[in-house]
Every structure is written in structure tokens, then in C-alpha cells.
């Protein structure tokens, strides 16, 4: 049963980008195009038969230089539900110097004629570098501390479905902004969509001049949450907890962990989000995270598959892509 809003990857309005490398370069129209299409996929994914044939015969390679379970699985499902062939590649980065393999790997994979490469890499800019060396579409599944565009898009879809809009909402992004690609992608996207964005973190976890990205800066969580519609918590990596960026886990939770007490400052219907995986008791209290009335964390995961299906469909519309040319 074909339940996709479109029945052919060539139909529908073309997408303005060959790759999806970040949200900084997406226009409001681009974002709405993705979210509108993703809405349809949310419905399709709730059917018994979740599959259509849009990507039939096409190959998607998940190329992950960093460990990931959820993002990789989400892309894998998205590709398979569109009828594409999906291959997962995890490249070990421990044994060999990372960079030596990057372009070699790109060129090697390119010779196998994939149609989409989904890439995660630990270095900022690595996915863009790889995109310059291949003929197929590339989706950035996270590059260093730079961008993670599909995460921001799935967050936007979650917000839009829950709140009916993005424009004018107060959004607080809280935690390790400095090392977070999720934070950067969300800041760009939310600003483009007309939300008012603030970041809340201790100064050691904020990059220099973050205000120039168009956000208000707060160091106190309760103050930062005043009048908020959306509370986005970020994951704090364990290696950054022990004395380097923050003195200890318990001190971090005491001042920057989200609990009901601090949440009182936000609007009563404020939505709580987290890109996962969560550190319970570090950046977020378990009770808050599991509050089905307030927390959208599981919904985010569901939206993730739909948004990635929309992105794959739109990139497959690229009339200049080599595989499309070959077919015509």
C-alpha cells in the first residue's frame, strides 16, 4: 500500500540543495518543505504497511566514523521504508589516523555508485569535505561540534505538531552548547523560523561570541527558563564532567540539571525535549524526562524517522544527480 503524499521522487517541487549539510544555509521555505513532507510520513509510519517504493533501486550508505545507534537506525529505517537498499558502514577511528581514511573512503564508496551517503564524523567540517569528493547526495548526520541538521528538523517537526507553530515561541537551549552540533543546528533553524532563542549554560560550556548567532545568553537555568515554550536539554559528555568544564556531576545537576523546581519558571505547558541519549540525574531529572504530559522525548524519536524520509525523498528529486541523469 502506497501511502506517501507523492508517488514519484521526480514529482513535487524540487529541493534547492544537492546535499543536506547544515541548517545554517536552509531558507524558511526549504524548512517548511521538509516539515510538510515529513508530516505525511508520520502518518505513513503509523500504518501497518509503512513502505513505499520511492527509493526502489537506489542505494543509501550509512557511513559512521563515530558510534551511533539511534541516528543510524533512524536513517536505516527511513531508507528501507522508502524502498531503498541500505548499507551500514562503521569505520573504526581508533587504529588508523582518522583523516587518512576520510577522502580515501569517500572515493572508494563513490566508485560503488551510492545515491545517498549519510555521514557522521567526529571532526567539524569533515562531512562537507567528503561531500566535495563524491557525486551523490550527502546528508550530514553530525560533524564534530558543527551541525546535525536532521536533529534540528525533527525537533522543529515535533514543536510544530505540538504547538502548531514555531514563530514567536521562546526556546531555551540548555547545557553543553560549546561542543554541541545539535545546539548550532537548532539555533540556525529556529532563528530562521522566527522563534526567540536563548542559551543557558555555565560560561565554560558556551563558545565565544555565541550571542552573534542571534541568541540571548543566560547562566542561571531558572532565570533562563522564564516564560519559555520549549526547553531543549543537551547531553553533557561524561568526559567533560570531571573537573575540566564543570567541577562535578552533582554540582552540574544542582545548578543546571532540569527538575520540576527549575521548570516552574517556564510556561505551564512548556514542552521538554532532549536529543538523547539522556544522562539521567546529570542534565535532566528522571521524573521530568518521563513525564508524558511535558516530555516530547519519545515523540522526537518518532519524528526523526519521518523527517529523514522527507530529506531522502527531497534529495532524490535532484534532477542533476548522476543517477537521475543516467535514467533519463
Amino acid at each position, binding site marked *: 500500500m502506497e501511502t506517501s503524499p507523492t508517488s514519484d521522487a521526480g514529482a513535487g517541487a524540487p529541493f534547492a540543495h544537492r546535499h543536506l549539510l547544515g541548517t*545554517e544555509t536552509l531558507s524558511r521555505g526549504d524548512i517548511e518543505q521538509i516539515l510538510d513532507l515529513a508530516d505525511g510520513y508520520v502518518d505513513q509510519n503509523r500504518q501497518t504497511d509503512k513502505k513505499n517504493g520511492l527509493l526502489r533501486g537506489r542505494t543509501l550508505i550509512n557511513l559512521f566514523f563515530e558510534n551511533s545507534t539511534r541516528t543510524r537506525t533512524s536513517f536505516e529505517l527511513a531508507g528501507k521504508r522508502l524502498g531503498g537498499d541500505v548499507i551500514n558502514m562503521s569505520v573504526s577511528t581508533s587504529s588508523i*589516523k*582518522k*583523516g*587518512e581514511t*576520510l*577522502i580515501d573512503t569517500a572515493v572508494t564508496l563513490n566508485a560503488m555508485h551510492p545515491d545517498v551517503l549519510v555521514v557522521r*564524523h567526529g*571532526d*567539524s*567540517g*569533515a562531512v*562537507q*569535505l567528503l561531500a566535495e569528493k563524491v557525486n551523490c547526495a550527502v546528508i550530514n548526520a553530525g*560533524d*564534530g*561540534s*558543527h*551541525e546535525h541538521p536532521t536533529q534540528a528538523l525533527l525537533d522543529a517537526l515535533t514543536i510544530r505538531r505540538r504547538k502548531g507553530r514555531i514563530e514567536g515561541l521562546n526556546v531555551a537551549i540548555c547545557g553543553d552548547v560549546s561542543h554541541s*552540533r545539535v545546539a*548550532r543546528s537548532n539555533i540556525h533553524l529556529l532563528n530562521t523560523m522566527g522563534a526567540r532563542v536563548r542559551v543557558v549554560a555555565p560560561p565554560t560550556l558556551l*563558545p*565565544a*561570541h*555565541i550571542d*552573534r*548567532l542571534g541568541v540571548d545568553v543566560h547562566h542561571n537555568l531558572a532565570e533562563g527558563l522564564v516564560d519559555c515554550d520549549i526547553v531543549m536539554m543537551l547531553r553533557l559528555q561524561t568526559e567533560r564532567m570531571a573537573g575540566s568544564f564543570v567541577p562535578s556531576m552533582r554540582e552540574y545537576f544542582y545548578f543546571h540539571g532540569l527538575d520540576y523546581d527549575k521548570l516552574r519558571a517556564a510556561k505551564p505547558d512548556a514542552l521538554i525535549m532532549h536529543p538523547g541519549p539522556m544522562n539521567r540525574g546529570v542534565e535532566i531529572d528522571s521524573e521530568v524526562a518521563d513525564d508524558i504530559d511535558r516530555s516530547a522525548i519519545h515523540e522526537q524519536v518518532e519524528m526523526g524517522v519521518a523527517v529523514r524520509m522527507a530529506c531522502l525523498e527531497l534529495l532524490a528529486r535532484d534532477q542533476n544527480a548522476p543517477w537521475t541523469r543516467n535514467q533519463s
Partner: protein
Amino acid sequence: MTAANAAPRRVFRNARLIDPASGLDDKGAVLVNPDGTIADLGGHVVVDSIQEDIQTIDCGGHALVPGLVDMRVYSREPGDEYMETLKTLSRAAVAGGVTTLACLPNTDPVIDDVSLLQFIQRRAATVGLVNIHAYAAATKALAGKELTEYGLLAENGAVGFTDGGRVIADALVLRRALAYASIFGRPIVQHPEEPSLARDGVMNEGETATRLGLAGIPAKAEVMIIERDLHLVELTGGRYHVANLSTAEGIDAIRRAKARGLPVTCDTAPHYFALNDSAVTDYRTFAKVSPPLRGEADRLAVIAGLADGTIDAIASDHAPRAQDSKRLPFAQAEAGVIGLETLLPLTLELVHAGHLTLDRAVAALTWCPADILALPAGRLAVGAVADFTLINLTIAGRVDVSRFRSKSKNSPFQGRPVEGRVTRTVRAGETVFDVDAAEAG
């Protein structure tokens, strides 16, 4: 012996003679002795070449300046000859109008021993195109711990002591280096970057770094080291030279130190006044340098520092890199740009834009660096070696890296419009580069 085999007397006529050291800027000619020294120069030099059997070179009215002196060059030989050799380095130098250069000790092996210093000198003599001098490492293996043999190295021609692109971080080591080098009259050359503050950084801290998700190095990392070092200069009286000055605060610190009469000099490189940190947008690894390209206010401060003489010299900081080491994610890529063949045109940009007088620009490329390293170069004077460079100051063109002589091509200036080019380079009276011959070839 026949007259035909001996070097003839030569006259370079119809030139605009510019010698900032003596204040000369006048139309005239240079007469060169058979031994390669300057016999006479100026507007009064008129030679009847037919009667006196003199070879005449018409300079076409172009500027004739002392051969450029580049006080900071990474030779890559020995050890990394696939990036550059002393031969390709010399060919790049003369194409850039440079007749005298000083090689940094960051080779493999490190130049931290008399025998290695002599190796460089022997190889340089074999190539023979330019005057190649060498620094010796300030500390053994550039490890920042033990001093090298300053006395023996100085006697064997080391022009100064430096750990090149590495900061001498330990205050006690630097104190002893300054104190000990002072008895041999050689400067200690510092790479000014506080290493623990800069530790994870790969570019200048600021909005661009934040957007790119790259770890930043604050500009303060430079002035912190400079100000600490200035206290050690006061303590020891040693000669101290700061390389690659790139920040407003660092320049201010040097300005104040000079005003207090401390024995302090400094240089910068063209990329610090020609580019700012927006050049690394899109993760352009060719614009990755150390210290990193700074913000616009710092770039303007570098220009102001050159104009008022706080910054004594402009050095290319020529750092050849293999393509493979640049075609990497930004954080993993090596730092460094080649600079010998863009040193002059980028400096002339400041002259054409009205920021520097031609006299000041040429001084920063000639006698100023020569004097810092006590090199017999950088001046047009009777009796001096006839090293000079002819420059067409106004010809427009674009930087074309594919024509560079350097073995590596890591320049961020490809395609940049420039005004002014070297037309001929003369070392000891002999033409070692001629743009017409180069273009024909």
C-alpha cells in the same frame, strides 16, 4: 685567463633606485664590479659601454631595491624533501625577489647541532642561487628543555636561536636562553602563543570559530607570552625577537617595550595583514596557520604596527605542506602557507592602498630583517655585494600558484588580484631570475 671568461663589469641603467637604509630614491644606475660588488650607484653613474667594454642592462625604469631578505623560511630539507628542497626553495626565493633568507631549524633531524648546521650550509652553497642562512634550535630537539651549544653554533654561523613554530614555554629555560645567547650577540626568536591556553584550539577564537564548531585560540594567548617574556628580557638584557606578530595587544606590548628601550624586535607575515579569520570559513585548510588568522581589528592593528615601525620586518613564514596534509578535516590539517612568491606583491598591496610608504615597505623587507640577524644584506651601497631586485610596481595580475617554483602549493592566495611583480633578481651581480626568460621557458 681571457677576458671572455671573467665576469664582466655590468651596469644596470634606467632604474628607480630605492634604498631605504640611506634614504635614496632617485633615477639612476648601478655599476657592478667583476667581483660582484657595487662599484658605484646613483644618478651620476653614466658609463660609455661601447668604449669601456661594459655589459649594459636596461631596467626599463623599474624600481631597483636591495635584494629582499626573508628572515623566516621552513626549508623542509633535511627530512621532508617531498615538500621542498633547498633547491626548489632557492628557485622560489629568487622568483619572489628574495636574495637572502634564514631557514628555521624545524627539520628532520632538527638543526640543533653544529654538524647539522654545516650540512645546511654545504647544501646551500651547492645550490648557490641565494644567500641561505640558518637558525639553530633554541633547545635540543625543540623539546623546550635543554639549551643547544649557542657559542659553537654562533661561531659556525647560526643567525639566531629559535624553536621555530614552537613556543619556548618554560620561563626558566627562556630566561637562561636569553641570558646565555646575549654573550654571542644573537637573538632568541619566540613563537608567541601560550600553549596551555591554546591547547585544543585550531583557529582564532571568535564568531567564525563558533559557527564552524571549531575550538578557538584567544588572541590573549599571544600577549600573555609576550608580556611574560618582556619581564625576562628586563631580567637578562638578552635580545628578544617575536615572530609572526598577529594581535593588537601583542603589538601594543612591543610598542611599549621599545619605548622603554628594551632590546626587542618583531616581524609579521603577509597573511596576518592580507587575511582575517573569515578566510577559514568553509573549513579552508589552506588558510590554517600558526598563530591563527585573527579578527579584522587585529589585522588592522598589524598594518598600523608596520606603518609606525613597531613591527620591524615582514617575513614570508614560508611553510611548504604536502597536499595530503591539507586535504583533511580542519582540526587535523597541518598549519602553514607558502609565502616566498607572494611576499612582495602582498606587501605592495599595503603601499597601493596607502597604508605604507614604499620606503617603509621596502625597509621591512630588506635592511630591517638583515639588521635583526646581523646579515650583510639589505642595502645598496658602494662596496656592498650587488644583490638587488627589480620590481615593476604597477603591473596588474593575479596570483597563479600553478606557476610557483615552490614544490608545495599550499597558498590561500590563488587567484588574488595583485599589483606589482619582480622582473629580475640579481645576486652578486649575476641575474638569478628574469621574468621574461621565466615566462618564455
